[in-house]
């Protein structure tokens, strides 16, 4: 199929438009159209995976059309080893979270409309190879997200939604200035990322523009000290949106480094590497400690994201093959693991209507299947060998160890912290005497298990045989590293 990438990006948008023509009362239809569209899109993603030539480092499935000739803006989509895992992750999570959205019972038409719009935005961000196009998709993610948190969120949803929106918008405006600086430096002026990577920029220019992009990406990741929107947004967002927020949106930030800052501004990236490593270590340890102190289950997982995303940054700061491989793999693994954890938090919250960790206890005997799955995801998250989290965090540490042993040593503290807060959580929720309040708690149902099983398989598979996915990434990352 030609234009496969365009189909992948715009199929959800078509679905969203189709939803507008369905009457509000047909809730069942609306739901199934959304699931059908995301499911079909996922199948297209599998198709892409099959057609992808993993030995080739450059972009494939290129679609290149002139869009605004006066500004030399092109509609340029392409896939390579860096964005393929992200696209796959996005397609998988948006399908699973769509199935996980069945708990949403009000204003469903608007919900699924915005959900599909968000999906198009996320996919476009990962597939665009033209900076103008990239920026448009990047911003397109923002607006539906505002509504999804603001309408269907928890008690403080309005505050969380506008905080998320303004933080990200402020960051992306600086990114826009960076994009313009690159555009005007290149001669002839272009937004094409592949061409911009060929231009030699002076050092000071690289550093300044790197900082402008850094602001945009750092807020999205989020890197300490720009992380304060994250716990608010996560706690208030409905479960499926938390899944996408943690699983996909945070990756947009680190993907930005790999796709734009690093290849286009190699000198700036080198210059910033020590700061990046420091911020990574701060994020890992700070996020871990704060997660340890949380009473709220969801907030704990949110802060654990800050910690785990720190490993991605650590890998990026390493400038070694292992580090880059680890960073990209960690992005993928964090998406599957934390996405699963948020789904599990949602399962519990739907039944108990509380997320207070201290109010649970002894659920292991009451809901054994749920307990088993929760333990599985927790162990993956804390880096148990044999599951995927271990592989990527190990690679990140291996990568940074060659460059900076101090960072590597400090980051290991984060792994201990992860084990501590996750096991402490398991102890408080699953072990001990059963709180009689929960004697009527229902077991996880088949639909919920269906949303988790694919993630569990991926976690195990990547944990045992990471080569399968690393082989896809290595050529592109190798080419990236060769540019330094």
């Amino acid at each position, binding site marked *: 199929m030609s234009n496969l990438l365009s189909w992948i990006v715009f199929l959800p948008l078509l679905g969203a438009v189709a939803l507008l023509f369905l009457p509000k009362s047909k809730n069942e239809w609306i739901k199934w159209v959304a699931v059908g569209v995301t499911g079909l899109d996922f199948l297209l993603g599998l198709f892409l995976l099959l057609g992808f030539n993993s030995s080739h480092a450059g972009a494939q499935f290129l679609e290149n059309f002139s869009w*605004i*000739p006066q500004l030399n803006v092109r509609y340029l989509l392409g896939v390579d080893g860096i964005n393929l895992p992200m696209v796959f992750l996005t397609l998988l999570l948006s399908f699973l979270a769509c199935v996980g959205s069945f708990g949403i019972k009000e204003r469903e038409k608007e919900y699924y409309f915005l959900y599909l719009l968000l999906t198009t935005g996320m996919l476009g961000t990962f597939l665009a190879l033209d900076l103008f196009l990239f920026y*448009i998709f990047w*911003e*397109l993610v923002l607006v539906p997200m505002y509504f999804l948190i603001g*309408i269907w969120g928890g008690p403080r949803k309005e505050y969380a*939604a506008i905080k998320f929106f303004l933080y990200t918008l402020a960051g992306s405006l600086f990114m*826009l*200035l960076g994009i313009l600086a690159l555009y*005007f430096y290149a001669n002839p002026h272009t937004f094409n990322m592949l061409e911009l990577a060929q231009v030699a920029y002076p050092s000071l220019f690289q550093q300044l523009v790197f900082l402008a992009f850094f602001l945009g990406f750092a807020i999205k990741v989020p890197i300490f000290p720009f992380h304060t929107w994250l716990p608010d947004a996560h706690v208030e967002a409905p479960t499926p949106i938390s899944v996408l927020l943690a699983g996909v949106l945070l990756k947009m930030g680190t993907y930005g480094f790999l796709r734009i800052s690093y290849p286009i501004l190699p000198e700036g990236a080198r210059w910033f590497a020590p700061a990046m490593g420091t911020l990574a270590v701060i994020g890992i340890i700070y996020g871990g400690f704060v997660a340890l102190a949380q009473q709220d289950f969801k907030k704990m997982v949110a802060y654990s994201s800050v910690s785990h995303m720190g490993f991605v940054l650590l890998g990026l700061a390493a400038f070694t093959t292992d580090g880059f491989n680890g960073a990209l793999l960690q992005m993928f693994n964090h998406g599957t693991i934390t996405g699963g954890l948020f789904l599990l938090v949602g399962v519990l919250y739907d039944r108990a209507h509380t997320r207070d960790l201290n109010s649970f206890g002894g659920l292991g005997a009451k809901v054994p299947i749920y307990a088993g799955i929760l333990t599985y995801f927790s162990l993956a998250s804390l880096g148990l060998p044999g599951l995927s989290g271990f592989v990527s965090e190990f690679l990140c540490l291996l990568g940074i160890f060659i460059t900076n042993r101090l960072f590597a040593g400090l980051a290991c503290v984060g792994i201990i912290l992860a084990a501590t807060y996750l096991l402490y959580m398991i102890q408080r929720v699953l072990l001990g005497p059963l709180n009689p309040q929960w004697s009527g708690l229902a077991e996880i149902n088949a639909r919920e298990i269906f949303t988790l099983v694919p993630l569990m398989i991926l976690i195990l598979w990547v944990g045992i045989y990471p080569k399968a996915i690393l082989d896809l990434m290595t050529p592109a990352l190798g080419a990236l590293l060769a540019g330094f």
Partner: protein
Amino acid sequence: MDALESLPYFIPDLILLASAFGLLMLDFSIANKKLLPLLGLAGILASLLFCRYPAEPLPLFYGFFVLDPFSFFFKITALGIVALTFLISLDYEIPYVGEYVSLFLFMAFGLTLMGAANNLLMIFLGIEFVSILSYLLVGFLKKDPRSKEASLKYLLFGSLASGVMLFGMSILYGLTGSIDLNQIQSQLAAGQVSKGLALVTLLLMMAGFGFKISMAPFHLWAPDVYEGAPTPVTAFLTVGPKALGFAVFLRVLHTTFLELQSDWGYLLAVLSMLTMTLGNVIAVPQTNVKRLLGYSSIAQAGYILMGLAVSNATGVTGVLVYLIAYAFTNLGAFLCVIAVSNHFGNDEIENYAGLSEKSPVLAFSLTLFLLSLAGIPPLAGFIGKFYVFASAIEGRFLTLAVVAALNSAVAAFYYFKIVRLMYLTPAANREPVFAGTSFWVGLALTLVGVVLMGIFPLPFIAFVQKALIL
């Protein structure tokens, strides 16, 4: 070209004048007053029909009225804005419809005059003509004290600004002995006039231009006038005279004072930052939607000024692109505001609570307009903002670019105040907002403009670039 030769090129303007006078007469004999705006609309369309793109600049009436691509562009823009204003006005309870429509037709002529003026005298006359019509239109609800107060305030401010501008023009004439912009330019270029004095005259003239485009520190009239005027007039004032004010400003700066750009460029950059910051910061606590959009329109003028301050090719294109985008967006936003205000009888923003449940299409459209004002892609406002940001980066006005970026984030906050009310706050009742046919026609036009220009800006940019072949 003498008067007789000029007449064939002057047909569109004659049509405007004829329909303006004709409607005044018809007002006595027509019983169904609702027809009058439609007839006015027909006059505008007839005038548009006779507009021809001039291949080369035509100096009509001994050079007092220049028909060049630039003035052609602004003529089309002005006529389009007035036409949309008629559509907007149909749903609004207006007394003395005949006079109202007729004044707007004169206004269309006045705006054309501003765009085509190429010498100091015509610039002054054009600006005064438009200003006086504006005072009348602002005070049109003569039983409403706020409307009267606004009109008087506007008149006092406007007279002062015009006076200062005229003072500057007279000094410039005294220095160069000419009122023609091109001749003054050649005098300046020849070094006959001291640079400092020339700058002083420009500074004085800026009072008049700044007043029209609501540039700080000449913006003080704007919030009260925008709040007090009949809402369709407010909608018109935030785009029409503003666009033409920019046209005159741009022409004067580029025809006459281009060599002094290094001097006024930084001044305008500072004023631009001041304008956008004042507009945005004061807009945040507003609870009256007209006042909020009024301050927002001051801030928008600040963004457009960026392009003028930098004045490179991207910046000038940006000014024009921004003006089209802004005209579509702001007229659309006011269209929605009028529908809601008519329904509730006041302009408080609490009225918007739960609007998405009561009138989903209206709420969705207003959201798109507000997003476009905030410069979120892929909508028209983003293209405009993109251009002015680009010009600032290209011209290395880094401080300006950073201040504008921060301002955009602040602006998003208050635009989202309305969005939040519409979507996140539950409605008090389920009574939908009534809107007539003209509302839907106007909404469709502005909405198509906002979305189309965002996704396919190509024809719009091409139109602008054709206007700038001076």
